């Protein structure tokens, strides 16, 4: 191998090329590295610590009954937060998840309760409608290249209008569902009652769904592509990933999860109302952010988001048990979001 003249001294040079012994092995940088390598560490710790603290403030909180109530309360938010996580991982956001959820509940409810359609078909139709609405969002984001925030802000209104039109602004009552399609309520039933706790099928569904999507994100090519697209879309495209197709599929899968969440939501609430779940959009974004997923995409995890939803549940339940007013609960959750985002920024800075 010939060398240029100015390189002739290279042979005698130190052969250890680019060794990266970091010299900043301080306590803080160790913490930072640990958090970067295990991003669910922080929400897991926050959850445990907050449960303990509320247990001290309000001893009743640590009873199995109350803890399982928290799980029940966050079941639907947790499931929709899984959908939201997929989208935020691609550096997007979905403000229309709540509208998709409720519209899907009405498709399921109307078909099975009012028209007597067999339940599996009604549920499949509801989930299909959810998928379709998600795919529509994805099409606008990937093909028309509109910012996800604007797209889903628009479809939030569109889907909400469709929801009000289709529901006729009327609820489907619990007694009607029980009479015509009782299996729609299955996810609200208790699967087990260990030590006075009530574990519903919905709670189990949340955990299973989270496990399934954790597997998909970590162990399938599609999952790696979701991260790559959120990280650097241009690099992903140059690496041979079909970014448009993947993006559309992410939004469609998110719609499908919302459709499934609709079934769980019917069981959780017991009835179907056009004005339910109006604040779930922001609640899921809150859960995702507290769970350590970056709003800038490419970083985060499904278990984190479920933990994030549980943290919000623990805070609201714990504070109300401690006799704190509603607005201070909101105040606390808001602060959690700010701390989570600040933490994310700190981690990002460390990587640049």
């Amino acid at each position, binding site marked *: 191998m*010939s060398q240029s003249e100015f*390189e002739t001294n*290279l042979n005698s040079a130190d052969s250890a090329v680019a060794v990266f012994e970091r010299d900043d092995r301080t306590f803080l940088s160790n913490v930072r590295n640990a958090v970067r390598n295990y991003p669910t560490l922080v929400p897991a710790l926050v959850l445990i610590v907050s449960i303990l603290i509320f247990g001290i403030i309000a001893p009743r909180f640590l009873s199995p009954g109350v803890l399982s109530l928290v799980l029940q309360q966050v079941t639907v938010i947790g499931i929709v937060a899984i959908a939201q996580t997929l989208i935020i991982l691609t550096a997007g956001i979905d403000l229309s998840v709540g509208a998709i959820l409720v519209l899907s509940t009405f498709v399921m409810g109307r078909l099975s309760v009012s028209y007597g359609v067999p339940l599996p078909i009604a549920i499949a139709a509801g989930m299909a409608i959810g998928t379709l609405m998600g795919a529509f969002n994805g099409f606008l984001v990937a093909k028309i290249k509109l910012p996800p925030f604007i797209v889903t802000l628009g479809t939030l209104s569109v889907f909400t209008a469709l929801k009000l039109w289709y529901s006729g602004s009327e609820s489907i009552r619990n007694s009607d569902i029980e009479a015509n399609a009782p299996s729609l309520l299955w996810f609200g039933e208790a699967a087990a009652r260990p030590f006075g706790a009530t574990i519903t099928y919905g709670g189990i569904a949340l955990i299973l769904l989270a496990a399934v999507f954790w*597997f998909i994100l970590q162990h399938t090519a599609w999952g790696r*592509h979701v991260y790559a697209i959120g990280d650097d879309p241009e*690099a992903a495209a140059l*690496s*041979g990933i079909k970014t448009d197709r993947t993006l559309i599929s992410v939004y469609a899968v998110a719609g499908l999860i919302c459709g499934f969440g609709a079934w769980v939501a019917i069981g959780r609430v017991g009835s179907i109302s056009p004005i339910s779940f109006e604040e779930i959009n922001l609640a899921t974004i809150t859960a995702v952010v507290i769970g350590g997923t970056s709003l800038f995409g490419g970083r985060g995890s499904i278990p984190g988001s479920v933990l994030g939803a549980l943290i919000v549940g623990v805070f609201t339940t714990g504070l109300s048990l401690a006799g704190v007013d509603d607005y201070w609960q909101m105040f606390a959750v808001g602060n959690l979001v700010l701390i989570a985002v600040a933490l994310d920024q700190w981690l990002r800075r460390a990587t640049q």
Partner: protein
Amino acid sequence: MKNITHNLEPVLQAKGLMKRYGTVVAMNGADFDLYPNEVLGVIGDNGAGKTTLIRAISGATAPDHGVIELDGKLVNFHTPDDARNAGIETVYQNLALSPALSIADNMFLGREIREKGIMGKLFRKLDHKQMETFARDKLSELGLLTIQNINQAVETLSGGQRQGVAVARAAAFGSKVVIMDEPTAALGVKESRRVLDLIQDVKSKGIPIVLISHNMPHIFEVCDRIHIHRLGRRLCTVDPKIISMSDAVAMMTGAMEPPTEALDAR
């Protein structure tokens, strides 16, 4: 060697490529030939259209007009994936790596290996172990195993190490052509040397290389022929053994007409 390549057909050939961005003409009838077993340097001033030419032959940009032939067969690349499937690998200037993903993930981005058996077929589970082993082998081939952990995120690597990962990816998968866009631009002297040695390694595997660079000493050291690009088209190709660096620069900037005797015989 020259006599052998003379009789060969080009591996990769482009004829009369045109590309317009609005009113800007990036390629104006650009031609391009790459012969087997050679390192072809591509030089040109900023804005000469080198990048657009390279994007066209690597599938990242579709030309408005013109044809591209690979092994004498007409090809139509619409995405980088098309070019990759045809055996053309590109190391882009921005490296096209996903910073938050691991080295192994990045090496296999877009062509992941699935596990055998039911987990792979039914659940589409990836074979992380095989991919990691492969990535580690490729990196140690290139002497880049100062990297301790194949699962560390690419963002934790230095510029030179990232370049190494990108080059290793291209060298591992490029079966027909490897294109490198400014591979030494961000590197120090020693790391540049690594990449130049690596170019020779890839060449010795029988894969022709296209090297785009502004670094004349590097170009003149490793290239068998030099393609000089000017004003959206090929001005000429020259033999680095005949022509001097300053003449090449003069031609590329338009200060000098290409003298006919320096033109490559092909």
